[in-house]
């Protein structure tokens, strides 16, 4: 009898708890289904709304302040930028500079008076490269701030895992993890890229090599382009190889003859993968890796004496100073071809690059951090600030939220972040830049020279 009383008591407690698990609703006011598609974009922009400012992140427009909404003089207010990435795992080499770029850009904006007077606060969480940790960090941020409106992420895996949450919670995510699924998956919508998605990058590379094969092909190669995809396993490493890119390669007459993976480790042995690629008749190698990833391939090609047998291409992250930290001989990096969706530190007369360089020096960052990550995040903060300013003008500071920033981003038209260091237009359902240059390493570090100027990339969105 006592046992049954106890069971009934526990069951009753369970029911009470279950009943308390949410707020009851009636069918008369149905709750919207969770988003299954990208939120609709508003009308396409008609013209570029702003002229790039001299000091890129400084407030530009001075709109007339309506009595019912605060758009100016926001002193004492705070806007929080949340970001999380891998500072203690395999991607730490690239995340460190990304974080520096973010912090320095925000610090400079705050020193200039913030966003219309509101101070930007930065909160960071280390994920250690684990998706589990990334979701935990997200939960932590959202749990501590009911009006979390913007987050910056750095990993493809994180973006893919969190895309539906960003859309559901209406939090804008600016991401350096350029996963196509993260941006354009069925439950995505609020995730925007700071660089082009990997399939588009791969497509642009394929365009370039097919158009210029006669001049760039290795001496031993024939007229047929045979590509080996040698990369890391996982969301990032395999991010460029989608059904659409395969079909696109086929349409260009490029055969993908080998697909090999190697370890996500600075000491990875790539010789087996390279020899398999050679055995399959490949004359082009593409890698979707960064820092020690392309370096491992370069070292492998050097060790095997096969450097001259392949055209080596990689995603934007491959062409970076971080690669030089791991390559055994700098000359092994010469010849790498990459889509390059931003300007570079050696464009020293460009005001955006000068601005980034001044931040870098003013904050005394280590030389190793002067790389793509730092530049991309200074640019990313500029995009975020432009969008927030537009959102404040539209809805007022008191109504500022993720949805307002989303609306601002998608209606801003062409954005030339940091005066054109990155070019992007998030209108019409496009959520990542679609313009890039093609560059090649033609000398020592920093000699990333332009082979092809800004070009519209092939649209290989899933």
């Amino acid at each position, binding site marked *: 009898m006592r046992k049954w009383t106890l069971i009934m008591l526990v069951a009753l*407690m*369970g*029911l009470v*708890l*279950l*009943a*308390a*698990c*949410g*707020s*009851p*609703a*009636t*069918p*008369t*006011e*149905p*709750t919207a*289904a*969770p988003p299954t598609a990208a939120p609709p974009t508003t009308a396409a922009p008609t013209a570029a709304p702003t002229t790039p400012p001299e000091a890129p992140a400084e407030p530009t427009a001075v709109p007339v302040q309506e009595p019912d909404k605060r758009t100016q003089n926001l002193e004492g207010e705070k806007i929080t930028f949340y970001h999380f990435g891998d*500072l*203690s*795992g395999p991607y*730490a*080499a690239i995340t*460190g500079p990304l974080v*520096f770029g973010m912090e320095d850009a925000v610090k400079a904006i705050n020193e200039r008076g913030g966003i219309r007077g509101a101070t930007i606060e930065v909160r*960071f*969480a*280390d*994920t*250690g490269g684990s*998706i*589990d*940790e990334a*979701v*935990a960090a997200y*939960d*932590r941020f*959202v*749990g*501590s701030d009911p009006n979390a409106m913007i987050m910056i992420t750095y990993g493809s895996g994180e973006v*893919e*895992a969190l*895309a*539906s*949450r960003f859309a*559901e919670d209406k939090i804008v995510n600016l991401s350096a993890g350029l996963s196509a*699924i993260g941006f354009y*998956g*069925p*439950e995505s919508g609020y995730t925007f890229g700071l660089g082009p998605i990997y399939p588009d990058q791969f497509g642009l590379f394929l365009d370039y090599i097919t158009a210029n094969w006669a001049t760039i092909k290795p001496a031993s190669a024939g007229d047929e382009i045979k590509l080996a995809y040698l990369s890391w*396993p*996982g*969301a990032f*490493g*395999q*991010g460029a*190889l989608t059904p659409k890119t395969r079909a696109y390669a086929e349409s260009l007459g490029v055969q993908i003859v080998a697909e090999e993976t190697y370890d996500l480790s600075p000491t990875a042995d790539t010789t087996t993968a390279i020899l398999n690629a050679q055995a399959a008749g490949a004359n082009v190698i593409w890698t979707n890796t960064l820092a020690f990833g392309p370096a491992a391939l370069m070292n492998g090609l050097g060790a095997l004496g096969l450097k001259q047998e392949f055209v080596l291409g990689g995603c934007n992250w491959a062409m970076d100073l971080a690669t030089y930290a791991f390559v055994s001989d700098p000359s092994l990096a010469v010849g790498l071809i990459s889509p390059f969706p931003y300007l570079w530190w050696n464009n020293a007369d460009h005001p955006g690059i000068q601005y980034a360089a001044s931040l870098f020096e003013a904050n005394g960052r*280590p030389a190793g951090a002067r790389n793509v990550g730092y530049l991309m995040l200074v640019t990313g903060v500029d995009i975020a600030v432009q969008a927030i300013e537009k959102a404040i003008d539209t809805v007022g500071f008191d109504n500022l939220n993720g949805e307002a920033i989303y609306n601002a981003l998608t209606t801003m038209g062409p954005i030339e972040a940091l005066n054109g260091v990155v070019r992007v237009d998030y209108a019409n359902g496009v959520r990542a830049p679609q313009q890039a240059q093609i560059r090649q390493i033609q000398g020592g570090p920093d000699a990333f020279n332009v082979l092809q100027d800004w070009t519209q990339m092939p649209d290989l969105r899933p």
Partner: protein
Amino acid sequence: MAVLRPSGDFDTSYEHDLAVVRQRWQWALLLLLLLALFTLPYYAPAPTVSLINRIGIAIIAVQGLNILTGYTGQISLGQAAFMTVGGYISALLVGAAGWSFFLALPVAGLGAGLVGLIFGLPSLRVKGFYLVMATLSAQFIIPWLTRHIYPSLLNGAQGINVPVPTFSLPVIANTCFLGTTFNAELGTCVYRFATPSQFIHITLGVLIVSTIVALNISRSRLGRALISVRDNDLAAELLGVNLFAYKLKAFFIAAVYAGVAGALLAHNLRHINSQTVGLVDSIMFMGMLVVGGLGSNLGPILGATLVVLLEELATVLAPPAAALLPTLAGGATAALKPLLFGLALMLFLIFEPRGLAHRWMLIKAAWRLRPYAR
């Protein structure tokens, strides 16, 4: 060590002799603890709820490993791979086949169990390090398969998005009950376990069931047979214990637990791919078991809790460490998590090789023997 009972705690019936929770105050404490856990979202900050959620899932995976390694003495480094199997099965059943999560969860466990059986086959012929190598192969084969087979279904290395668990109730008297909301598309009232505050109820529910099952396995004929295999397999065989069958049972049960934990993880993360859990996680699970105490039902709970909390500590410490030593960012801070884990493991192996569970037993015994305990 001998089980020390409080003075006056006698067995008055066979039921009482078998009881795990023996005293009324113990029942009251247990119910209070459960109440505190289930109502956690109402008083604890969201990050804490999220953390408890992760601890809960880790405990389930380690409970499985405890049956295999702690009770049966078979070392496995494939637990995370079996989690991947469970995660994929549940994701496909719910996402592609439209099953209810609550039906898919046990099926994911059974599916992972069957895969675990395959990797348990070498256990009859090999032991110790060789068995570690055999189970390690699961950690390479299974992720490789998820990346390369049925790309249209498993989506290769990108993995698949996993739906949020839901349950539906009919609309009664034009009203939705039990916290559900009306879904016009389905025409029913739906409850979505979308946030950690909601998902934790599933995790805790499964954790309670998994703990009861693990507890009963260890107290049953099966558990005694497993322990005999661990302690002396030759003697066990001479006593009539079928080594092969019992080792396979242990592998099956461990993989079922891993599969269930994997399904929970996948639905909690809403995404799974070949790298969601990996070799490092398998090693961490083994470390959690060592820290908590092998062959004890309390061990997985204490070990997983401590190690996940240490991971959390490393996450909290990394940014200030990077700010303090900017030139070492991404270098020294990268080592923080493995450093703390390794340090804890080393200290336990030196000072308390029987784990936290044994230390807890000692504390309880000392408390009951007070003031005579040293």
